[in-house]
């Protein structure tokens, strides 16, 4: 693949908080149709990078280019309109809304005709297997359902690229497998490019086409899962023992 084909290009992004360098000249390409994994120890800057890409923090330097358009420093709602959505590590649910209404909020991103909105909401709920819970308040859901709703409302915005921040954290192995299956379908059937940050190795190794490794704000490795897992720099970053697949 050539650079021109990349859906999203992150170029030389640097972000400092006070004296701490959270991201140091990071380059990442996300290609159309792929599932890109991103790993790294705590504090490696993964969530910060997501926050820069989705407009929550402006970078101190560097550029973010989406479908050839420079989106650096644009606010999140404009980025959502362009076709990027995300979930959060801290889930940020709409506790007082029903599952259906939470998804509806997302659906309004591209649609204004009420009938179309309703159709979209129904589609997404069915796709996510959430139709049984549609009238349930998010406050009454369990953690798995809350995370599913967060993915559902993001999908409802009709994104080209979806960023998932630790979607598998807190799930048991069976649930992780279900999530992998679901995200594969999102990727294949809905044509959404995925960029996932994950701690759960079973998940990230199982789902990713390629993996990027961040360490102290720097990209130290990139490549297919097998190759990255045996990269000496990566093993060292994780102190060897922790990266058990």
């Amino acid at each position: 693949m050539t650079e021109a084909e990349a859906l999203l290009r992150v170029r030389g992004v640097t972000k400092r908080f006070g004296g701490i360098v959270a991201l140091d000249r990071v380059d990442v390409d996300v290609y159309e149709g792929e599932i890109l994994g991103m790993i790294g120890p705590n504090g490696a800057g993964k969530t910060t990078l997501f926050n820069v890409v989705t407009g929550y923090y402006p970078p101190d330097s560097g550029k973010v280019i989406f479908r050839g358009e420079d989106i650096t420093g644009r606010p999140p709602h404009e980025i959502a309109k362009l076709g990027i959505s995300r979930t959060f590590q801290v889930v940020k649910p709409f506790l007082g809304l029903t599952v259906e209404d939470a998804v509806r909020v997302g659906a309004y991103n591209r649609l204004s005709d009420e009938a179309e909105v309703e159709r979209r909401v129904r589609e997404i709920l069915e796709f996510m297997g959430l139709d049984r819970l549609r009238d349930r308040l998010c406050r009454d859901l369990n953690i798995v359902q809350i995370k599913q709703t967060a993915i559902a409302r993001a999908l409802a915005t009709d994104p080209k690229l979806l960023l998932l921040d630790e979607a598998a954290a807190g799930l048991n192995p069976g649930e992780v497998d279900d999530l992998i299956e679901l995200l594969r379908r999102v990727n294949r059937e809905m044509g959404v490019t995925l960029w996932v940050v994950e701690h759960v190795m079973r998940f990230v190794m199982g789902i990713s086409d390629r993996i990027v490794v961040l360490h102290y704000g720097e990209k130290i490795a990139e490549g297919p899962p097998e190759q990255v897992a045996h990269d000496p720099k990566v093993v060292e970053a994780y102190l060897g023992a922790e990266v058990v697949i």
Partner: protein
Amino acid sequence: MRASDLKPIVALTAMLAALPLAVRMNNYYVLLLTWILYYSTLVTAWNVIGGLAGQLDLAAASYIGLGAYTMGTLLTRLDVTPWVGIPLGGLVAAGFAALVGYPTFRFGLKEAWYALATISSVVVLQKLFLVWEGVGGPEERYLPARYGELYYLRFRGYAPYYYILLAVLVMVLLLNVKIRRSKTGYYLLAIRENEEAAEILGIDVRKYKLRALLIYAFVTGCIGGIFALISGYLHPHHFDTWTSLQVAILGIVGGAGVGSIYSLPATTFIIYSISELLRSTLGGWIPGIHLIFYGVILTVVVLLKPEGLSETYERLYGRIRAALLRRRAGGG
């Protein structure tokens, strides 16, 4: 709008329209009911910003005062009818609201700053109108005593104002129902629940908060004009921080936002009646007992149920409703 949305409004209107007759147009009770309706209307309007958008607005008195002075000044100076002056007052109030709201609704700014900026605005406008002798000043400015003329909207008793406020309340209720079922309504709820998540779903948080604020401030400014007609004069003390606080307290205790919109007039009715009872019985010994009551009820309610306030209220309301339905079913 669905038919099921309209039914309770029709029922409520019929009930409220009959109330003054039920108390046989007794002056004291009609006045009391008028104030209850006045606050109900304010709280229901407040629901748009405080309930749906979840922004703790404490500037009700600023909008009321601006609406009152705009309508009153046009009426006394230029003989402009309140029919024109009242909506113009709403526009002035909305303009002022935008000045305060635009900077404080910046994405990611602490919620507390908006509450601070709004309550402070009341104090500040009061001082400014005191100093601004041309329009305000420390003397009361009386409205023309042209009673009974539709052009001046001035009446001797309170009953006409009661019915004017009732009409406004119905409009504000319909407005709430309409917003709640629209894209704007869903967006505001999302903002209230989590601004950061709302942004990445494509919601321009500042724009929608401002929209809610402008609607609310316009309505409240209009109510301010009516307030001036009822009180019959203009004075800087119409910029009263206590009114602002009362509206927010009734809104919070009434569970603005999540629950049924009708819980707001209902709460206002109950709490205002209790506080009035306290004032008329114990107020002689303990001045301000009714105000202390508001402080106690707010603190207690918020501490006991800081998150699911409206939920509790809903449950209680549901229980009362079920009981009433049972009785009706039993009676019929």
